[in-house]
């Protein structure tokens, strides 16, 4: 049996914030253009979120983090670490984290850097933030999972590659609105999905995506975590799994013994698509928006390449007052405007200008 | 200070002058003005220009044009105040003569905007705005004027279509000006169909950028008998400024620079606004015509469009404006426009304008040159010299 991860001192979420851009591209619009609509009964999601022309991972992270800061009610200068997990950092070289730190008033006394681990870069940043606070290196750390994912035009990925994410401020357990009970991370070298340097679009490795990658890693991380915590699915009020579509999280939840009711609050992919590093963490904000003190929540991410982080939180009575002071996940889900494929293609720079 | 007069004028046609560099345009206008004045030498040269550095990669226009006109050695300097550079250069020439430091001074306005493609000139013209807080976040010059026009429409409950009268007047007059860029009339339907530049400003609201040069020769009033050129007295030429950023003004429709410059000019000339018989307006955009007339005191705030649509500013109206086509019809060679206005007003006062656009018996004429969204304003009043 593997040992689960627990910080030396209790650590939890003291502030959280969501962000989803306002624009939506219906999967039907993609289907109509590339398949004459013949796959309309098999679409992986209903619609996906698309960033506006002036948005990117940095601007979206700013708003999510501002929401988290409002809930945390701390002076930004007290935050000692800024970590942004994404596979769509605007710069190849130059951290997203420093821009965020400057805008939020966290700079200059802080560590900052970017994480990349496909769709689990956000939970990776949360693990690092937990370690930073848990070890006593600092009292507060900001971790963001955010993406503006790209899918090759006409590729199956294009239906779901979406934009959005969430920010978390991790802090001492006694200030937390949700305390981390423990976590488990499970990684192997699995080339299920990757994007080489300088390439615009990612590639899938054969049919590794399902069984070898998504299911194997999440099954492992969750199973080890539950064993280590001596918990079973029925001990959880809610669970959120990485959601590249609607089917996968439903399937892994059922296999592990979680009910549809337990995963409903965290399952957003039908309405916004796959927000990559933002997916699991955004499901968690929606769960927290509805949580009650005492609720136990499981979050399991998956990142290609491949790995899964499973984390278990117990909600405290600080949730009630924190929840109201910033926009909720539903406020962003409900703020929506449909765009057509041409607008999407222009905004996402799929039209070659030179 | 001595009183001064203009004894010679010169201009090139306003065109896309592919065949001439900026120095030749300047030299042509200068030599034409000197010929008109019948002087063969000048004591100093003041060159109004905004964008020679940005668009012709040529600064140092004072020395360059003096050199190519054959006057190397004289005092010569470039004067810059965005779109008001032309009249600003004239004011410098006036002061040089009025102060007694010079006997004959030349002011020219020259601009060459067509050296590069239009997209560069849009960015270059935006340098008249605040670079840090307007231009560098995406405001074009048309956009800044559009913000004023939208606000005007909101405050005075007027329609966009009401503005059509100003470009219609400009084009109607330009037909008779051989130096104008446009020689066709436009109607309300053309205006309604014009494409948007920065909503609500459309192409018909916007003066065309072009190349050109205009020049005047200035001498002391008490010496005009010495010269053969037809003299017109400069009764006033007053410059005032306002904030460069439109956002720094409490009321975007209140152009303090226009108010100060116009009221001071009228006071120095010793006349009332109603004595002005024609006005060469700075109609870079239709909204600027409206704000220029209202803030100069020619009509109450909110009334300029009504007055214009009633015919007050047409060529046969109470106070014709843009008699040679204005910036819209004659064209807007930015740093030269202020001197084109003066050259045109001089022709009106002399009675030398082409017959269809000659205003009858002109004793007093005004020209107002505006830089930026009103940050530099120069109001000039010309007076006929009665023998």
């Amino acid at each position, binding site marked *: 049996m593997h040992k689960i991860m627990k910080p030396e001192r209790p650590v939890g979420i003291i502030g959280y914030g969501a962000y989803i851009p*306002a624009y939506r591209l219906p999967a039907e619009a993609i289907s109509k253009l590339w398949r004459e609509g013949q796959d309309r009964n098999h679409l992986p999601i209903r619609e996906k979120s698309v960033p506006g022309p002036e948005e990117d991972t940095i*601007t979206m992270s700013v708003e999510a983090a501002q929401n988290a800061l409002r809930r945390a009610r701390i002076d930004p200068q007290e935050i000692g670490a800024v970590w942004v997990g994404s596979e769509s950092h605007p710069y190849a070289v130059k951290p997203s984290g420093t821009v965020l730190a*400057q805008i939020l008033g966290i700079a200059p006394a802080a560590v900052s850097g970017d994480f990349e681990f496909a769709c689990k870069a956000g939970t990776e940043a949360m693990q690092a933030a937990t370690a930073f606070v848990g070890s006593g290196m600092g009292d507060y750390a900001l971790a963001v999972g955010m993406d503006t994912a790209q899918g090759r035009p006409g590729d199956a990925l294009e239906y779901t590659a979406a934009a959005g994410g969430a920010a978390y401020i991790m802090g001492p357990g006694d200030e937390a609105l949700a305390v981390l009970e423990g976590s488990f991370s499970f990684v192997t070298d699995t080339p299920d999905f990757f994007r080489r340097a300088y390439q615009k679009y990612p590639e899938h490795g054969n049919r590794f995506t399902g069984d070898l990658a998504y299911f194997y890693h999440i099954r492992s991380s969750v199973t080890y975590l539950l064993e280590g915590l001596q918990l079973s699915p029925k001990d959880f009020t809610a669970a959120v799994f990485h959601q590249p579509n609607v089917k996968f999280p439903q399937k892994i939840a059922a296999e592990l013994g979680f009910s549809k009711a337990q995963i409903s609050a965290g399952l957003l992919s039908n309405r916004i698509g796959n927000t990559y590093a933002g997916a699991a963490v955004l499901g968690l904000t929606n769960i927290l928006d509805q949580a009650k003190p005492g609720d136990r929540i499981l979050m399991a991410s998956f990142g290609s390449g491949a790995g899964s982080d499973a984390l278990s939180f117990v909600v405290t009575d600080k949730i009630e007052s924190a929840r109201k002071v910033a926009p909720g996940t539903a406020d962003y889900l409900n703020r929506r405007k449909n765009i057509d494929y041409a607008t999407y293609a222009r905004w996402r720079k799929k039209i070659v200008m030179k | 200070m001595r009183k001064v007069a203009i004894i010679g004028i010169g201009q090139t046609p306003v065109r896309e002058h592919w065949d001439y560099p900026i120095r030749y345009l300047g030299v042509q206008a200068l030599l034409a003005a000197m010929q008109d004045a019948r002087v063969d030498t000048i004591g100093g040269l003041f060159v109004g220009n905004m964008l020679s550095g940005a668009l012709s990669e040529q600064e140092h226009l004072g020395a360059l044009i003096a050199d190519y006109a054959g006057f190397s050695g004289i005092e010569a300097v470039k004067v810059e105040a965005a779109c008001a550079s032309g009249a600003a250069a004239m004011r410098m020439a006036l002061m040089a003569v009025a102060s007694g430091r010079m006997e004959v001074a030349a002011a020219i306005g020259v601009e060459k905007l067509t050296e590069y493609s239009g997209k560069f000139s849009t960015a270059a013209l935006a340098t008249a705005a605040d670079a*840090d807080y307007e231009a560098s*976040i*995406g405001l074009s010059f048309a956009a800044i004027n559009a913000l004023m026009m939208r606000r005007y429409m909101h405050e005075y409950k007027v329609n966009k279509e009401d503005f059509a009268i100003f470009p219609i007047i400009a084009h109607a007059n330009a037909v008779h000006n051989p130096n104008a860029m446009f020689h066709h009339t436009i109607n309300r339907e053309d205006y309604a169909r014009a494409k*948007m530049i920065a909503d609500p400003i459309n192409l018909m609201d916007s003066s065309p950028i072009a190349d050109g040069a205009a020049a005047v020769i200035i001498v002391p009033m008490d010496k005009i008998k010495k010269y053969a050129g037809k003299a017109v007295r400069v009764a006033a030429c007053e410059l005032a400024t306002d904030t460069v950023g439109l956002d720094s003004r409490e009321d975007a429709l209140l152009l303090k620079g226009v108010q100060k410059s116009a009221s001071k000019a009228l006071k120095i000339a010793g006349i009332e606004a109603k004595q002005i018989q024609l006005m060469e307006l700075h109609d870079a955009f239709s909204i600027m015509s409206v704000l220029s007339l209202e803030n100069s005191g020619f009509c109450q705030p909110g009334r300029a469009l009504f007055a214009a649509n009633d015919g007050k500013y047409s060529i046969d109206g109470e106070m014709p404006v843009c008699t040679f086509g204005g910036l819209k019809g004659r064209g807007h060679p930015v740093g030269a426009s202020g001197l084109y206005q003066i050259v045109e007003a001089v022709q009106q006062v002399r009675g030398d304008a082409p017959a269809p656009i000659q205003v009858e018996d002109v004793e007093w004429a005004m020209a107002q040159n505006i830089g930026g969204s009103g940050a530099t304003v120069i109001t000039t009043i010309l007076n006929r010299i009665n023998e």
Partner: protein
Amino acid sequence: MDIPRYWRLREQRYKLQGNVCAECKAYNFPPRPVCLQCKSKNMQPYQFKGNGTIYSYSTVYQAPDAFNKQVPYLVALIDLDEGPRITARLTDILDNKIEIGMPVEMVIRKIYEDGDNGPIQYGYMFRPLLKKKE
């Protein structure tokens, strides 16, 4: 690549960092060395809250070169709650409805990208207030 300008103005563009006159309490954005109202030189830093109303607006169809790829886009004059008027872009106008007097709030957006190799410049834009479920 106006990197020094971007770097120098980052506190203003990121946080609406302006100043307030210690004598007459007039707020300034951009920060001014001399108070526009009372000419005092005793100015204190002040970070604006980022809320305001639209004073005027325009949709730009023909833009300066650096912004050509972004047309059409919206610009506006916005009266900040503290007093000063600011020139800014508008974003996320979802129902295409804009009115003078409409309340707006500051957000961070990409102002422009200097080609494929240059810096990405971030700064303030304003959007209609986010609707919150009570």
